[in-house]
């Protein structure tokens, strides 16, 4: 399984032709306490960079973008009742959705873990 990151701080863990999407601990920290997460409907087709979910802190709402295009096949329903999971475990239990990746070549434009770390250090 490989992990890729976007400049908007989403991650996608890829296993075969499916990917699990979440936001990085860096992003979760920047947002502050997450109080609400809006998840997409299962079966929705999203393009690379499309809004796939919404995450809201006390102060503001932010979009979560699809790192690559594909079809939403599962969402993390646990976040509906426990949105704080995003803060507690952004890189694991706080995942947002699972998708069937339409075009694996879109992963090539994303950062690997080392590149993402360098990217965050520069912010």
């Amino acid at each position, binding site marked *: 399984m490989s992990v890729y990151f976007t400049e908007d701080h989403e991650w996608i863990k890829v296993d075969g032709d499916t990917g699990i999407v979440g936001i990085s601990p860096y992003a979760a920290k920047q947002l*502050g*306490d997450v*109080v*609400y997460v*809006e998840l997409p409907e299962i079966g929705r087709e999203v393009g690379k960079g499309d809004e796939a979910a*919404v995450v*809201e*802190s*006390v*102060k*503001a*709402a932010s979009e979560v973008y699809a790192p690559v295009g594909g079809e939403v096949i599962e969402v993390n329903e646990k976040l*509906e009742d426990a*949105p704080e999971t995003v803060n507690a475990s952004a890189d694991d239990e706080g995942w947002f959705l699972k998708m069937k990746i339409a075009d694996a070549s879109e992963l090539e434009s994303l950062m690997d873990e080392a590149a993402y770390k360098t990217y965050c250090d520069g912010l």
Partner: protein
Amino acid sequence: MSELLKTKLHAKHAALGAKMVPFAGYDMPVQYPMGVMKEHLHTREKAGLFDVSHMGQCFIFADDGTFETAAKALEKLVPADIQSLKPGQIRYSQFLNDEGGILDDLMITRLGFEGHTHKLYLVVNAGCKADDFMHLATYMPPGITIDVADDTLSLIALQGPKAVDLLSQFNPAVKDMVFMTSLDIPLTPTMWCHVSRSGYTGEDGYEISVKHEDVAELTNMLLAHDDVEMIGLGARDSLRLEAGLCLYGHDIDTSVSPIEAGLFWSIQKHRRSADAGYKGAARVASDIADKTTKRLVGIQPEGRAPAREHTEIQDLDGNTIGEITSGGFGPTAGGPVAMGFVARKFTKAGTPIQLIVRGKPRAAKVVKMPFAPHRYYRG
């Protein structure tokens, strides 16, 4: 863009690790490392300390040395009864334009300190203060002095249930003050402060006007106590929203009259007629009589999704009936809370409405405010 102004506590905010944002021309702390949620809850449970030095402070007094002359002059610009203020008493009011639109909302105090009881002390919003001082300079008659104190005075607020025990350690006189009164007293043998039992969080607490050179020392004195944490503008906003208090530039502005904003209570009985003699009095009187105007109401979204400012409000048939003006998550309420304007016939508590959040209608209802009970000390 011109350089942001800094309050005298700017270095303190930086040292505490605050996240700073531009606000009304100042570089202000929006949150500290604790985060908005915990800061909010800490204020309701213990005590929060806020730097509100960006707000405008000024004094108004008459050359003839009488309170009556100054009070009558200010009464031309605000709906509140000023002449009946007792020494030390505070009233909330608004500057209105000729059409009755709100130019700013403000706190007006008649000083209680011997030899100064003829003076009025005003605290106005940071974002409006330049215009407010110009407004005063334009409309105060000859013989009235307007003394702007931005160059000499800072302002901090200590809010929350522990505030009284804490501040009374420095001067026990603060204990018996009731809500919306003030005292000029020393908090150390050499530090005289203007202490008001007031605030904008819905909690008991104080606002303390203190000399610029003393504000850092006073802040450190208060922060030395375990129950006190610095609180940023983020939690200040969620606290005032839960308390059902208007924020200028969001819930109220020149397009809104005090009656529409639900501020009827701030206009004393004999000031409600069209001939009360202040700017906008005709609009206030006609809004009181007219049942068709919009009203600011509390709105409780169902479910967990917050409805933010500018969210469209519809009736159950899908007709637009208004807009959210403040909305977010209420940490004490434990869910989303909002306020907004709706057409008059939808103002009754319990009225079902819908909110259009990201294109989708969501159920909500009109509710009575506040969302968190006020805990003012009234003696």
